C-alpha cells in the first residue's frame, strides 16, 4: 500500500520545476533557523526578568573555546518532597519556584515534577535534571540533591573575554538577568558585574 501511495507523490514532485523545489528546500531551512531566533526573541520580549547569582564552576568544566560555563545558586537544590518519588526518566523536566530576596536576587523556594501555580513576585522556571533522578534500588527515584540545567549555562563571548568573565564569576561578582516565560522557558537577557549591566542581549 505504501508503494502505491508514494509513487504518485514522487511523480507529482518530478513535474514541478527544479528551481521551485530547490528554492522551497532552501526557504524551509532558512525558515527553521529564523524560527529558532524568533522563539528566543519572544522569550526576551515577553519573559519576566529574574536576576540570578552565578557561582564558581568545577574547573574541569571551564571555558571551552570562548564561552563561559555558568553555574547558579539555583543549580544544585535539595529535592524536598520530591525525594524518593518516581522520577520516570534519567533526565526529567522539573519546575523550580523562585522568589526574590532582599537584594532582588531570585532564590529557589521549591522543586516540582510538574508546573505549579505561583503568585507575583514568584516565578516558575523550567529546567532539566542533569543529576539526581537515578536513586533507589531500581535507580528510578529522585535523590537528596538535584542538579538542574535551565538552558542558561552557556554564554558565548567575544574572543579573549572569557577568562575575564570567569575571574569575575569566581569572585562572586557576576550575575545574570534571565527572561522567564509563564511556561518556565528561560533565556539570558543581560550580564551584570557588581550589579551593573556589561552585556545586553539584543532580540535579534
Amino acid at each position, binding site marked *: 500500500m*505504501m*508503494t*502505491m501511495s*508514494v*509513487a504518485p*507523490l*514522487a511523480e507529482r*514532485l*518530478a513535474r514541478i520545476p*527544479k*528551481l521551485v*523545489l*530547490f*528554492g*522551497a*528546500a*532552501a526557504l*524551509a*531551512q*532558512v525558515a*527553521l*533557523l529564523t524560527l*529558532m*531566533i524568533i522563539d*528566543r526573541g519572544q522569550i526576551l520580549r515577553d519573559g519576566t526578568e529574574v536576576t540570578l547569582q552565578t557561582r564558581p564552576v568545577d574547573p574541569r568544566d571551564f571555558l571551552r573555546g570562548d*564561552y563561559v560555563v555558568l553555574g547558579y545558586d539555583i543549580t544544585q537544590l535539595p529535592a524536598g518532597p520530591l525525594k524518593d518519588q518516581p522520577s520516570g*526518566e*534519567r*533526565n526529567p523536566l522539573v519546575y523550580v519556584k523562585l522568589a526574590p530576596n532582599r537584594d532582588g536576587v531570585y532564590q529557589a523556594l521549591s522543586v516540582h515534577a510538574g508546573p505549579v501555580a505561583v503568585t507575583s513576585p514568584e516565578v516558575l522556571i523550567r529546567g*532539566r535534571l542533569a543529576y539526581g533522578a537515578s536513586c533507589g534500588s*531500581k535507580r528510578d527515584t529522585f535523590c537528596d540533591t538535584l542538579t538542574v*540545567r*535551565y*538552558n*542558561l*549555562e*552557556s*554564554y*558565548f563571548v*567575544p*574572543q579573549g573575554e572569557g577568562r575575564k568573565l570567569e575571574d569575575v564569576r569566581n569572585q562572586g561578582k557576576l550575575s545574570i538577568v534571565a527572561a522567564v516565560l509563564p511556561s518556565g522557558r528561560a*533565556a*539570558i537577557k543581560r550580564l551584570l558585574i557588581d550589579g551593573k549591566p556589561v552585556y545586553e*542581549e*539584543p532580540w*535579534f
Partner: protein
Amino acid sequence: MMFDRAYRQRLEADLARWEADGVIPPAAVAAIRVALPPLAPGINIAVVVAIVGGLLIAAAFLAFVAAHWIEIARLLRLAILFAGILTAHGLGAWFARAGQPMLADLCAAVGAIIFGAGIALVGQMYHLGGDFAGGMLLWAVGALATATLTGSRGALAVALVAASIWSCMRVIETDVPHFAFVVPWLLAGGLALAWNSRVAAHLVAVAALPWWIASAFQAPHDFRPSFVLANGAALLFGGGIALAASRRPRAAQAGSVLSTYGAFSLAGVAILEATLANEVFRTYAGLADQPLWTISCGVAGVILAFAATATTRSAGTAFATGAIGLVLAAVALWMPRQSGEPWLAYAALLCAMLCLVVSGMLDAARPRIVAGWLGIAGVIAAITWAVKGSLLNRSVFLAVAGMAAVVLALVLNRFVPRSRE
C-alpha cells in the same frame, strides 16, 4: 549506476564472444543493444576536478568567515549563513536543469550540511546550547524536507545521521526506547520506495542499526542486549523477505536490501548470543523480564517471514524463516542463571546459520550466504573460546555437531539432485 555500468561491460564482452562463437546471430546482438536503455550520465574527469575546485573555494570562504567571525555583526553573520544555504540550493537547481543529477544531489546535501552548521552557529550566537538532541532533531527535519523536495540521496543520508544521533541521545537521556525515531525512519523508507532507489534503501536499512544497538545496550539492567538485538534482527530480516516477496518491483528491491542487512544482523546476533550464552556472562534476568515491545518485534518478524514463505512457496524463504525461528529460540529458551553449558542454544545457533547459507543458495542471494558463513565461523569460534566451562565437553559437542553435519551431507548427496556444473 556503478553496477549498471559494470554489467554493461560484461554484457558487451559476452555478446561479442557469443557472436564470434556463432551462438547468437548478429541481428540478435544488434536487437539486444537497441533494447538496452541508455546509461545515466556518469561523472567525467572534468566534473571531478570541478567538484574539487568547488570544495576548495567553499573551504576558503568558510575559513575567511571563521577568521573574521567575531568582528562580523550578528545579523551579518546570519545573512552569510542564509546566503550559504541559498547558494548551495541555487547551484543544485542549476545543475538539475543542466542534466547533472549527481552534482545537483551533492549541492542539496551540502545545503543540508550548511543548515546543520547554521543550527550550531545560531545556537552559539543566541546562547541556545542547552538541548543538543533537540538541535539534531531540527537538523533532521530540515534535511528530510530537502531530501523530499529535491530527491537528494545525500540530503537523506544527512537526515538519517542527524535523526540517529537525536534518537540515541534521547535513549541515553531517558533510559527507555525512543519510539519517535520510527517516524523519520518510515518517512525515509517512503522516500526510498518513491525514488525506487537502492542507495536510499541501503541508507534506511543502515539507519535501523544504531537505534537497535542503542536500545539494547542502554536499556535497564534486567534487559539482555542479545535478546533485544535478536528480536530486532528478526524483524529486519522477516520484514525484508516479506517485502522482497512483494509483486511490486519497488517494494521487492527495497525488501532485498533490507533482508541483506537483516541476514547480517541475524548472524551478528548469533555470534553475540553464542559468546554471551556462556554462564560467566549470565547475570541478566529471564525471559519474563524482557519487554513486550521487544518480543512483539520478534513475533512480527516470524509472522512476516511465514507470510513470505506462504506467498512465494520458496524453499529458500522457508529456510530463512527457520533461521529466524532458531535464533529466537536460542535466545529465548536458554534460561539465564541456568547452570551448565547451553548445548541446545549452541546447536540451534549453528543450525540457524546453516539455514541462512542454504536459504541464500536456494534464493541465489549471495550476501545471505556470506552472512551465514560468517555466522557459522563466529559461532564456532565463540563455542571454542568460551571463557568458562569444560574444554573437553566442548570438543565432544563440536565433534558430534561435525559428524551430524557430515551425515546430513551424505544423505543430501544421495537424495537431492545435483545441479549441472
